[in-house]
Each structure stands twice: as C-alpha cells, then as structure tokens.
C-alpha cells in the first residue's frame, strides 16, 4: 500500500509546516462512503506523489481511493460504449482531454463545490477548463552532461544542435510532440511564435537537425538508464527524470530556457461509477497544502494552485518550472493545435522515421 507511505510522509511534512494539516476536518458536503478509482501515469514515484497530494482525503471524508494506470482515451471510449466505465478520476494530458471532450466522454468539473474548499483566487485561471482542471504540467528541457560537455551548455535549441561547439551524442523523444516544437525553435522561431506550427518548415528543420540526433527515446523511463550510463551527452529530456538523477549525484545540468511544458488535467469520465465523490476528490486535490506536500516530495512540476508555491524554500523554487524566472521563456504545448493536426503530423513523422 503506497498510499500508507504517502500518508506517513504527509503527516511528517504537515508537522513541519507553519499551517499544519488538520485531519478529520472535511466539510459535511465532502463526506462520503464510496470508493474511487483514480487513473494516473503509474510508477512508484507518481503514486508517492499522488498519495501526498490526496493527503488525508480518505480519513477526512470516508471515501476510499485506489490507483490504476495508464490514462487512455481509446480505452475510455470503449468502456463508455459498452456502458462499463471503471475510472472515476483520470489524469489526462491536454490533447487527450480534448480528444475525450470531442467524443463527449467527460463530466463538467463542479467548480461551485471546489470553491467551498479552495479560495477561487488561489487557482490559476489558465489551468481551469470546463471539463478539467490542471493536475500537473510536466516539462521537456535541455540537459547535458557537465563532464563531457562542460559546465556551460547550450542555452537555446539552436545551440543544442551546434555540433561544433557542443561535442557529443544527442537524444530526443521519438515522438513528433514536442520534437516539432524543438525543431522550429532550433530553426530560429521564438517560443511565443511556434504556434500555429508551420508543419512544412518543422519537417524541413527535422531533415536538417534530425540526423544530428543519435538516439530517439521511446519511453520516459529510458532517461534514467541513458543518464546513468552516460550513453548520450546532450538531451531534450524529461525535467522530472533529469532532476531526480541530478539529485542522485549524476553530473548533469539543465536549462529552463525554451523549455516545453505540457499541461495535464484532472478529469471525470461521464458515466463514472462515482461521479459525486470524484468531484470531491478533484476539489480536495486543489488545496494548496496537498500540492505543496507533493511538490516538496518531487519538486519538478507546475501546479494549479498558485498558493502551493508559498513557503517553498528559495532553492527549491529555483528548480520549479512554474517559478516565474523559470517559466519566463518557456513554451506551453498547444493541445488544441495537436488535436487538429495529429493525424497529418503522425503520418509524416512515421514517414520520416521509416526513411532512415
């Protein structure tokens, strides 16, 4: 039971905070008796983080929470077709949420209920949509090995592909998103001008820069292995994975300049077994305390409650992608654009990949 561990961690954290967490203090309308199944991205780290985030929800409300993985729109579509939706809360990526919305698979978020627990002004309006509220934003950043590349690494994607200045092997995700964004920025497009993506220009840039990539990465878990074994020297890698390796002592450095953030959302599937309690959990997760606890555990993400950053030490804040100085020149994935152009881009991407 990972949630138990999380609870212990949370209690410990709670005691260290000036405004401690009070157990058993859920308002009456948050009480319940049901069971919730939360579909997240899985893995021990994610579950620990989520457990800290939910905090004492189960204790305070009487509603049980269990986990499953991995969020998948096609699966939800089929579950909904046969009338047997198994998930109550799903952590969808932006484009996934839009796809689910297009198929009419989601329940609107009950913001009135949420405001009873969380002050409206704490929440980031940019992360609030009708059918989902920001869970985390995860980042893809430039990272390099300080022993082989040096202390000073590339500060833009254009420099990232400058093989004369920065010698070494390079790795990127084997996916068009966010590779097309990276290619455009490498080609000199400013972060704010990337959307709408000029697909032809992006693929032209891919012809130019793509061959400089030695290794295309399929799974996020590969970054750990690649970093630990020094298989590559420069990478456009997962912020969370890279930071975790740096904390373990790997000689790596990162740059937040032109970093790419992708927003995920908490959503509630239409026809979920326990929509009412699911609304309660989603509201509960927006509390600053829980988000802060989970940030302290894994300070690599951006959160919907701005107050979560209060009381976070400066050195931790410097690592957070949501911190003002870090997000100044970052790019947020435009999920709407991807939903519209995914099919076309995917075909061209596979075509490019299979020609090599």
């Amino acid at each position: 039971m990972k949630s138990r561990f999380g609870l212990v961690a949370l209690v410990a954290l709670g005691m260290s905070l000036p405004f401690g967490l009070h157990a058993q203090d859920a308002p009456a309308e948050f009480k319940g008796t049901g069971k919730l199944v939360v579909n997240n991205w899985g893995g021990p780290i994610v579950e620990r983080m989520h457990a800290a985030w939910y905090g004492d929800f189960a204790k305070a409300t009487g509603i049980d929470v269990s986990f499953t993985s991995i969020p998948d729109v096609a699966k939800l579509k089929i579950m909904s077709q046969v009338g047997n939706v198994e998930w109550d809360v799903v952590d969808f990526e932006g484009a996934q949420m839009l796809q689910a919305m297009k198929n009419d698979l989601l329940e609107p978020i009950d913001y009135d209920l949420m405001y009873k627990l969380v002050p409206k002004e704490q929440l980031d309006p940019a992360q609030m949509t009708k059918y989902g509220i920001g869970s985390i934003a995860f980042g893809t950043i430039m990272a390099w090995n300080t022993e082989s590349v040096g202390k000073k690494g590339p500060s833009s994607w254009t420099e990232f592909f400058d093989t004369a200045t920065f010698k070494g092997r390079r790795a990127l995700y084997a996916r068009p998103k966010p590779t097309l964004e990276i290619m455009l920025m490498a080609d000199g497009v400013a972060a704010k001008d990337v959307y709408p993506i000029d697909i032809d220009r992006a693929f032209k840039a891919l012809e130019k820069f793509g061959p400089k990539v030695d290794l295309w990465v399929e799974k996020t878990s590969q970054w750990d292995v690649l970093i630990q074994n020094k298989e590559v020297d420069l990478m456009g890698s997962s912020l969370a994975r890279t930071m975790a390796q740096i904390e373990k002592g790997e000689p790596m450095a990162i740059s937040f300049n032109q970093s790419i953030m992708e927003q995920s959302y908490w959503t509630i599937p239409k026809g979920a077994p326990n929509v009412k309690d699911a609304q309660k959990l989603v509201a509960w997760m927006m509390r600053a305390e829980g988000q802060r606890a989970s940030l302290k555990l894994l300070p690599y993400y951006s959160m919907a409650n701005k107050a979560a950053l209060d009381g976070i030490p400066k050195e931790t804040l410097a690592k957070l992608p949501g911190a003002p100085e870090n997000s100044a020149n970052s790019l947020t994935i435009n999920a709407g654009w991807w939903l519209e152009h995914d099919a076309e881009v995917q075909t061209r991407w596979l075509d490019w990949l299979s020609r090599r």
Partner: protein
Amino acid sequence: MTPFEASEPAGKSNRLLPDPPSVTLTAWQRQQRGLTVSLMALPVVAMVAVFVMPLLVLLWMSFGGGGKTGFSLQGYIDLAQPVYLKLLAFTLQLALLTTVLCALFAYPLAYLMVNVSSRFAAWMGVVLFITLWLSFLARTFAWIIILQRRGLVNNFLIGIGVIDSPLELVYNKLGAYIGMVHILLPFMVLTLIPAMKAIDPAYVRAGLSLGAGPARVFRDIYLPLSLPGLVAGSMLVFTLAFGFFITPAILGGGRAPTIVMAIRDQIQQLGNLQLAAATSMVLLVFCLGLLFLYDRIAGIDRIYDKGGK
C-alpha cells in the same frame, strides 16, 4: 487460430466420436456420445467467445463499425499510403529474419538438449524457462546494459584492446534484432524439443549402418523428421515477431519503426480505431497467407504429427 482446427484431416476417424451406427446405438455408445458433446461444449463456447468474437468485432470495426461515419472502406484506403506500406515491409523483413535467426540458433540448442544427459538438459530447460518468466521490458533494459557504449561487451572489448572506440551494438537495427532473437528463441527451442524427442534413434542408427555419412543421415533422415517442430516453431516465432513492439522500439533507438508502432499511435494518439482495426486485419491476412504458404511447402497437419512417423 481457426486454420489449426480446419487442418484436422477430415478423413481420419475421430476416436472420441464413435463410427456411425449401422443399426442402433448401444447404451454405452449413447453415453459416450453424450459425454463427448458435453465435454466439447465448454471449449467451443470459449473458442467462440475468446477468439472468434473479438476477431469479428475487429473486422466490423475495420469497416467503420461503432464509429460515427458508418460503413466505409476509409480505414483500408488510408492504409494504402506509402508510409504504411514501408512500415509493413520493414516489419515483415524484421519478423522473417528474426524467425530464420531463431531457427538457426534454436536447432543446435534443441538438439543438444534432447541428446545430452537428462540432468544437463534439465538445467538448460530451467535457464530457458527463467528467461521466459522475466518481463519483456526487464530483458530489453538488460540488453541495453550489455550492449550500450559503456556496456559489458564494449568495456570488455576495449579492455582487452580489440577495439579503440565502442561498437554501435544497440539503438539501431542490430540492437532490435539481438533483442528480438533473444526474447523469441525459447519459443522455437521449446517447440523443437518434442519433435526431436519423438525421432526414433533407430532410424539414425539404421542410416549410419547402411553406409550413409553423418551429413547425409542428418539431411535425409533427421532434418525431415524434425521438420514439423521447425515449421510449428517458425510460425509461432514469426507471428510473435510480427506483432512485436516494445523491444524494437527501445533497442532500435528510433531506427527500427514497425507497423505496430503505427497501430499504437492510431489508437492512443489519434483515436482512429477504424484505421487501427484495418491495420490489424491486414497483419492477420499476412499471417494467414504465410500459414497457407507453409501448408503448401510443409503441410500444416504435420505439426500435429509426431516426428518419426
């Protein structure tokens, strides 16, 4: 798969079912028939529910069933794009070469396991089974540790001075092949063993005592008798390799894209179930075509033969 059922030779009398009664059934025959029917009911229902139904649903989906647009050939029309044909061609090549390599490695291995002392063979069997039990993903990552630039192989070769700079053993097509062959090898060995065990050593001895050399005995006696196992193993490995995804995706480092990756994207990224179903149907047709080819060359019913008959 249905062809296996269909390949049951029609002429042979089935031992479970009594011959057609000439006059009346005896009580015992009636009882036997009742037992057969009741015993068969569950497997038949299970076959239909587990294999036939999903296949029909997939076929229905590939023509737009369950979608918004209604019946259409769009899934198949989309598939005719050159990129899918290219991916299909590469996947076929990957699966065929993997099958051939597996056969080449598995044959001597299985021969050894059948012919050495049973204790040693049991040990080899245990090793083989252990690799089967470990997860694909774990074994895939294990290969990375072995093959990468600072991996075991490269460190060893550099250490003894054979090479100066590391060989590119992984994150390319070579890496994909190594991983695939390793993961699928046990399937070939395990199908070869029973076929080889069933070969009566007397045939080999007879061939030798009649003056044929070992090579000739192998070519004219042993190989043909072990062919059913080789055919069954090849079909199993080919079918598995054709649908393989995660190992070539990781070990290939983006240089071994397979058609299954396209199916994955069609489902997860694009939500295009019709295209994904159509792609799956085309893969199925390819596998059936291969089965047909095998039938013409080797005879599929030989899979059910005991070697040495």
